[in-house]
């Protein structure tokens, strides 16, 4: 924190995962992608990526298949709402308790 020049003491940060903390812990429901319905996964083509486009936290990757970073995904459900092929379902976070316990080991 330096204050040598005017206007340097401002709220400015680099965008990146983790700027808001590990927001994955906020999640009550988890988006899960059914790869048999997902357009890029099904066709093997770099197409659609509606989930990547709409995710407000940039935690969906623009890859084939798209992947969700659960460390930062808050579980807002926008991807599931927007997916044109209904490939994303919101499932209770509690049903993943074993995975979560494994992650925390």
């Amino acid at each position, binding site marked *: 924190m330096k*204050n040598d020049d005017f206007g340097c003491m*401002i*709220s400015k940060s680099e965008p990146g995962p983790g*700027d808001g903390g590990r927001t994955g812990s906020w999640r009550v429901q988890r988006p899960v992608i059914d790869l048999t319905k997902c357009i890029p996964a099904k066709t093997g083509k770099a197409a659609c990526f509606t989930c990547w486009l709409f995710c407000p936290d940039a935690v969906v990757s623009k890859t084939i298949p798209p992947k969700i970073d659960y460390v930062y995904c808050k579980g807002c459900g926008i991807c599931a709402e927007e997916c044109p092929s209904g490939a994303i379902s919101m499932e209770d976070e509690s049903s993943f308790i074993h995975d979560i316990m494994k992650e925390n080991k």
Partner: protein
Amino acid sequence: MHLIESGNVAAATGVKLSRVQVVAAYPITPQTPLTEKLSEFVAEGSLDSEYIPVESEHSAMAVCIAASSAGTRTFTATSANGLLYMNEQLHWAAGARLPIVMCVVNRGIGAPWTVWNDHQDSISQRDGGWIQLYANDHQQIIDTVIKAFRLAETVSIPVMVCYDGYLLSHTYMPFDTPDQDKVDSFLPAFNPINKLDPENPSNFNSVTLPDVRPDVRGNMAPGYMEIRHGLHQDMRRSMDVLQEIDQSFFEEFGRGGNPFLEPYRCDDADHVVVCLGSLSYHMRDVIDELRAEGTAVGVMGVQLYRPFPDQAIVDALAGKRSVMVFEKALSYGNQGALYADIKSALYTCTERPLICNHILGLGGREIKTKHLYDAVKQSCENPETMGDTPRWIGLKCQDNG
């Protein structure tokens, strides 16, 4: 080149000479001719600027915030309730440290509805983190607008240039228009300290936690209090910058020299009248008359209201017998805001003058020279009896006081 034009045209000419890049404004009396003139400049091609018509003053300031964040030199103007409608965005612009320049063409605030002049609009915004400069005539309007851009951009703080509605905005006076090439060398192109840059993406002014915390790279990022402390410190430091800018303007254009306070016949005065805006020039007639009658009295206009030049106030007023603050605004339920600020500045001084407060001209109530003369004369003759309660000048239908 000399022009004989209105105060609003003086302001618009200053904005044009400053090569502003974005103007977003909503018309409101008595500011309207200023924004009309700017839109004419843009339409005829003499001002290369984006003129963005908006549906409200709140939107005007929101557009200015966006344009300034993108690194452009940005201007708007408003009056009275229009300024109040911007309120939330005004605080944002200051906290975000955006060097927007805005003319506030001073007008009283409704209710009851009024379109005439007083200072309640800009005074009500004194605590928001904007620098406030007051111009007393047309020459000061055009000069102050040009200086305001350089000040705002040097210190990254938005600046209001305030001048009296009608008394200055709609009256015609001769003023000198600086040459464009001289203004260009005085005011170089805006080189923003921070801006939105697609090559280097940043988050600005997102939720900032109460405490400091590491950012994504592990560097310690300031918390809300550090950022607000920075604004305050930079406001205080901007007084030195204003002094330098005024000096450099004086060297280039031969005008200026009193960026904080403008004293008139104060040096040997026992009594000093203090006021904001064109009232301080009106008051000079009264000072001359009382001087001719042998009363040692002067008047001091306050050009810089925020940051408050408290040390300059103390230097100017310590040792005087009395100080009279005449104000076209009021902190309702207390006293005049300027009066309270001056009284507070004088608290620590050992040779403390007697001080009194006069409220006048609200909602454009005519200020007669005779009223000023009587009030100043009475205050000079019996400064001990004036008391701390504001006295209302020109009040009818009830007892004065």
